[in-house]
C-alpha cells in the first residue's frame, strides 16, 4: 500500500447520518473480482431505478477529483463487508471524516489504506457547511501531526492509535507486522489444548 503522508484535496460533504455499509455498497452488486467498485458506491443515492443520475453531490463538477469525504454520524454502521471500503477507495477517497463510525467499518478502512478521522460533531457540521458553500475548496489532512485543516484555515487535531498510524504511515499491512511475531504464534499453539487446536467431530 502507498504510504500515507499528507492529503491536500477537494472534499465532498455528505450530511446524511447512519449511512450503513449496505447503502455504501449494495449487496445486490455481489463480489466480482478484479473490477473497480467505484460504480457501486452509494449507488441508490447517486442513481435512480433506471440508472439515471440523481444529480447528487457526487456529480457536481466543482467536487471532481475529491479525495476526502466529510460524512455524518455513525457512518459505515451495519454489515462488516469490507467491499464498502473498496467502493470508497476505488472512487478515489483516501480520507473519511465523521463524528462517529461503525466499529467494524472503521477498522476495515485502515486495512485498505483509508484514514477514517473522528472529529467532534459541531466541527464536522461546520466543515460540511463550508464545503457546501464553497464546493471545490481544499482540506488538508496530515497524518504525522494528526491534523485536519479546514478551507478557512482552522486546524483540528484527531486521535489515531499508534499501531494504525505506523502501518498507514509506512504503507505496511498486517502481515508485515505479524511476520515479526511468527514464532510467538507457534509457541502459543504449542501450549493450547488439543480440543481447541485439533477438534474432533462426532
Amino acid at each position, binding site marked *: 500500500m502507498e504510504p500515507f503522508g499528507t492529503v491536500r484535496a477537494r472534499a465532498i460533504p455528505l450530511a446524511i447520518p447512519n449511512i450503513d455499509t449496505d447503502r455504501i455498497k449494495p449487496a445486490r452488486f455481489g463480489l466480482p473480482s478484479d473490477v473497480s467498485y467505484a460504480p457501486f458506491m452509494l449507488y441508490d443515492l447517486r442513481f435512480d431505478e433506471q440508472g439515471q443520475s440523481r444529480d447528487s453531490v457526487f456529480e457536481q463538477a466543482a467536487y471532481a477529483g475529491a479525495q476526502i469525504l466529510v460524512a455524518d454520524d455513525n457512518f459505515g454502521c451495519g454489515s462488516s463487508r469490507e467491499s464498502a471500503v473498496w467502493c470508497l477507495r476505488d472512487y478515489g477517497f483516501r480520507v473519511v471524516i465523521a463524528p462517529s463510525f461503525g466499529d467494524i467499518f472503521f477498522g476495515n478502512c485502515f486495512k485498505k489504506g483509508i484514514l477514517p478521522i473522528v472529529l467532534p460533531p459541531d466541527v464536522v457540521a461546520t466543515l460540511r457547511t463550508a464545503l457546501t458553500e464553497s464546493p471545490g475548496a481544499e482540506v488538508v489532512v496530515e497524518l504525522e501531526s494528526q491534523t485536519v485543516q479546514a478551507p478557512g484555515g482552522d486546524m483540528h487535531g484527531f486521535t489515531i492509535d499508534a499501531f494504525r498510524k505506523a502501518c498507514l504511515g509506512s504503507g505496511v499491512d498486517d502481515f508485515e507486522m505479524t511476520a515479526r511475531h511468527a514464532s510467538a504464534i507457534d509457541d502459543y499453539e504449542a501450549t493450547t489444548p488439543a480440543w481447541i487446536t485439533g*477438534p474432533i467431530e462426532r
Partner: protein
Amino acid sequence: MGRSLVEKLWDAHAVATTAGQTLLYIDRHLIHEGSKPAFEALAKSGRGVRRPQQTFAFADHYAPTVKGRGFTTPESQTVSEALARNAGLHALSHFGVGHPRHGIVHVVAPELGIVLPGMTVACGDSHTSTCGALGVLAFGIGASEIEHVLAMQTLWLPPPQVLRVDIDGELGAGVTAKDLVVHVIARIGAAGALGHVVEFAGSTITALGMEQRMTICNMAVEAGGRTGIIAPDDTTLAYVKGRPFAPRDADWDRLVELVRSLAPDPDATYARRVAIAAADVVPMVTWGTNPEQAAPVTEHVPDPQTIGDAKQRAMVERALAYMALEPGQLLASVAIDRVFIGSCTNARIEDLRAAAAVLRGHKARIPGIVVPGSAAVKREAEAEGLDRVFTDAGLEWREPGCSMCLAINGDLAAPGERCASTSNRNFEGRQGKGARTHLMSPAMAAAAAITGHLTDVRTLARQR
C-alpha cells in the same frame, strides 16, 4: 486489580503486543460465501490456511430455501461454488446446502459445539456477536482480516472497552429476549455502544436459556457494539455438554474449570455501565429504519414535530417517509403484508415453538415464510409437528438459510411491502428495494400474521 470477563479472555489469547494493539489468537474461524475475495487474496499472495481444522465453512447467505430450486442468480452460484471449492482445496469442514448439519453459521456453530466458552471466534459477519452468548470473544471481520486469520490464525486488535449492561428483575408474560434487546438498543441508541464490547449481566440475563442469550448478543452490534458477550455459567455448560465438537472426559473437566475461572472479578471495572429493569420491557416493534427506532407495540408512531433536536427530527421524518407511517398513528393499527420468521436472531427451536404456540389453530391472513436456522432445528421442529402448525396456518415451511434477513438468495419483499420480521436490521432496502421492515419477536410476528397488522401478542392470548 480485578479483571472483567473480557479482560480475562483477552489476556488468555494475547500472543504479542505492539504499539498498543494486541495480536490475538483466534480459536475458531467461521467462514461463509463472503470469504471469496479473501481466498482470492490468499491465493494471490501464495499463502495457505494455517489451521484448517480450526476453520469451518457454512453456505448460508445465498442458500436457496426451497428444495431443488437452485441458485436464483449467477452471483449466488459463483460464491457458493467458490466456498465449496476453497473448503475442498484447504481441507476445511464445509457445511453446504443439503449437508445434514447445514444451516446459518451463528445457529450451527453453537449447536454443534464448534464454538465453546472461553474461546475467541472470528467470522466475516457482524452478527458473529451471537457467539458471545457462550462466553466467547466473537469478532465480526472484513475481507482483509479474513485473509489474515486464514493465513495466521490471529488478528491485530486494539484492546476493547466494555459497556456493561446490568438487567435485573423478571420479564413479564409474553415479553421475550428479542423485546429486551430491542428495548436496550432503543435506550442506548444505534450508536450508543460504539467502541465498546457490550457485556450483558444481571439476574434477568442469568435466568435466560442459551437460545435467548444468543438473541441478545446477536443484536449487540445494532447498538453499535464491537460485539456482545455474556459470562458463561452452568446454563452454558449444560447446553454445550455432549455436543459433537465439545470436549469429553478430562478435557471436559478442564473446560468446566476454565468456565469457573472466567467469572468477572468482583472488583473489575468497566468503561461504562447501564442499568435496565426487566419489568420495564414490553413487546416491542421497530417503526423506523434503524433498530433504535423502536417502541412498545402499545404506543404510537412518534411525531417529529415534538422532537426538539433538528437532526433527530430530520432522521425521524426521513424514516417515516420511507416507512409510509403517519405521526401519532397507533402502532397496533399498522397493516402488515408479509411475515418472515427466521434469521440468526430468532430461528432456533424455542423461537419456532413460540411462533407455533401463537399460530396453532389459526390462519395467517398474509403470506409468509418460516425458515428454520439449521437442518437440525428443522428436523426437531418437524418431530414436534411445528411445521404442520405453520403450513396449516397458510405459511410456507422452508429449508435453512439466511433468507429474507438480507434478501440476497431470492427471498425478498416487494417494494412498499411491510414485513413483520424476526431478523435484526430494518435499514432501507434491507429486505428488498423499497421493502419496509418491522422487527419483532417470533410470537409477535406470528400474531401479526394472524391479524394482518402489528399486534400486541399478549392481547391475542387473552382473546382466546
